[in-house]
């Protein structure tokens, strides 16, 4: 993405998605309502069984609300590109000679912007209605969001690359998402997993999503500073995941595209 013209292309893709999204008025209402209701439902649940979460020196409401916010803020990135994978659009867009990063970024950015916009009322609801107690280190939070976004973006590219070949199903990303739902600690500290099966939390720490939840919680619940070596370590591990995934995701996306071009299935769906 060397030149401003590439950013204009990204913006064109975002603008198209905004037009599409905003032209369905009922969709706007249902999206906003679903996000707020989701946080409210979890909030009520957490409030009901509020217990201390010593791993982050906080209470369960705050712990859970941050988990939900992360889920709503970062994880939707992965769905943005996949939604664009219909052949009617894909073939013509590729015929414009669009570069891969521009395509992937442009097609996923609106989903991300929407998540950020929805994040604000969700945060308000969490703090003022459910009494979530956030102690934020903004530098660490910004860094954690950047690292997390890179990881999710890479997972989206991997998923896209595979879906271009398989068309509908991507069991790799699906399996990873399911494992994350079960093991990454959205609703509980992962150390609790060992109560069910000794050593199970070790499996959880193999998932990038677990690290995403962890570093965001360190930044928002304990005001963890990355200058602190104990906080810096999980940040470094998560950044390592991101660095590991970048070349792999680019490779898989390009492989998928080339395979579909070789097999003549780019226009299939």
């Amino acid at each position, binding site marked *: 993405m060397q030149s401003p013209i590439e950013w204009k292309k990204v913006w*064109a893709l975002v603008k198209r998605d905004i037009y599409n999204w905003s032209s369905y008025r009922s969709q706007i209402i249902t999206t906003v309502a679903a996000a707020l209701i989701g946080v409210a439902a979890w909030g009520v649940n957490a409030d009901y069984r509020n217990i201390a979460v010593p791993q982050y020196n906080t209470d369960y409401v705050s712990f859970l609300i941050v988990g939900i916010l992360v889920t709503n803020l970062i994880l939707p990135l992965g769905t943005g590109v996949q939604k664009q994978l219909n052949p009617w659009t894909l073939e*013509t867009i590729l015929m414009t000679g669009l570069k891969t990063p521009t395509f992937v970024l442009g097609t996923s950015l609106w989903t991300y912007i929407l998540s950020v916009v929805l994040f604000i009322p969700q945060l308000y609801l969490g703090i003022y209605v459910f009494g979530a107690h956030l102690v934020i280190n903004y530098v660490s939070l910004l860094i954690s969001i950047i690292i997390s976004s890179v990881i999710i973006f890479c997972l989206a590219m991997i998923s896209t690359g595979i879906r271009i070949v398989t068309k509908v199903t991507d069991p790799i990303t699906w399996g990873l998402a399911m494992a994350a739902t079960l093991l990454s600690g959205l609703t509980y500290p992962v150390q609790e997993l060992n109560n069910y099966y000794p050593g199970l939390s070790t499996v959880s720490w193999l998932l990038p999503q677990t690290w995403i939840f962890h570093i965001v919680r360190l930044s928002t619940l304990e005001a963890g500073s990355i200058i602190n070596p104990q906080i810096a370590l999980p940040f470094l591990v998560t950044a390592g995941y991101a660095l590991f995934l970048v070349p792999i995701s680019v490779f898989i996306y390009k492989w998928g595209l080339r395979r579909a071009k070789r097999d003549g299935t780019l226009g299939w769906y």
Partner: protein
Amino acid sequence: MEVPALQVIDITKRYNASARSIRSSAEVWKFVSVLRGRRENMMTALDKINFAIAPGEIFGLLGPNGAGKTTLIKILSTLVLPDSGQALVYGTDVVKHPRTTLKNLQAVLAESWGFERRLTGRQNLQFYATLYGIPREIADRRIDELIDFCQLKFAADEMFQKYSTGMTRKLLVSRALLTDASVLLFDEPTSGLDPGAAADFRSFLKNTLAREKGKTLFWATHNLTEAQEVCDSIAVLNKGRVVATGTPSEIRSAIAERVSMAIALQENGTARQVDEFGEISRVEGVMQMEMRKVPGSQTMILELEATRDVDYNKIFELLSSQGLRIVGIEASQPSLEEAFIKLTREERS
């Protein structure tokens, strides 16, 4: 020597005949097999295709369904990779330099609109103009010109979902012209259009795009009348092989095994009986012959059906020796449709 606008050299493409995709999550067991994508049970879609198109030429690729036309168009549009061979657009290899290729070549694929239904025609064009990297002020001017040029002014600010098939085609052409590409590929451009709209569209492509603007048009079709009416030269593609190339009349005459001819003759004073011409029927190659008199005149018409290599000189000599003067000759060849059916049937058998 002039560089061809489009040159295809020994292009070959094979597909896995049993290629499959996963249709639902329930078919997850297919996953490994699909990802492995073994090249087995291969079916040849294109077999060593060769041709060259000069700048400004209208080239027709004629072939029945499944002949490989769309595969070739997609290779040229950089959407499918060939197994071997080379395709060059003004000397640029489409596989090695896809982005440069797409600056000179655009395809109008009737099945791949790529338009957003909730955006207007103009907004769709603006969207693609940005993706092509055209600066806004140039794009806006060009879009206005194209909307005017493609006679879409009345619908430019309507949502795309209200467009008819004919309007969609024109919007597709407008998009293809955004970059001012000099080579335009059309895949069955008039399919789905009513006869009137198809005729208008053909005339627009031929007269306005090719003749006025000097664009090189590559026209894939199975519509023979269309090919004959529009194309300067044609390649007939069948089962992935080019079975004939040339102008429409060259193709017609190349396949003609027999020639039908009517020769108008004038008697030189002496009236002749029709049965006095039996010698002509014995000339090698003459298959059928009929002589008839035109009532009320001294003119006779000799109708001949002969093989392509019939000895015309001998026939003319015989007529002349009978004291007849040739006043007119009319030869008829098979239609392009007959040629096409013959070429594709020969391949089939």
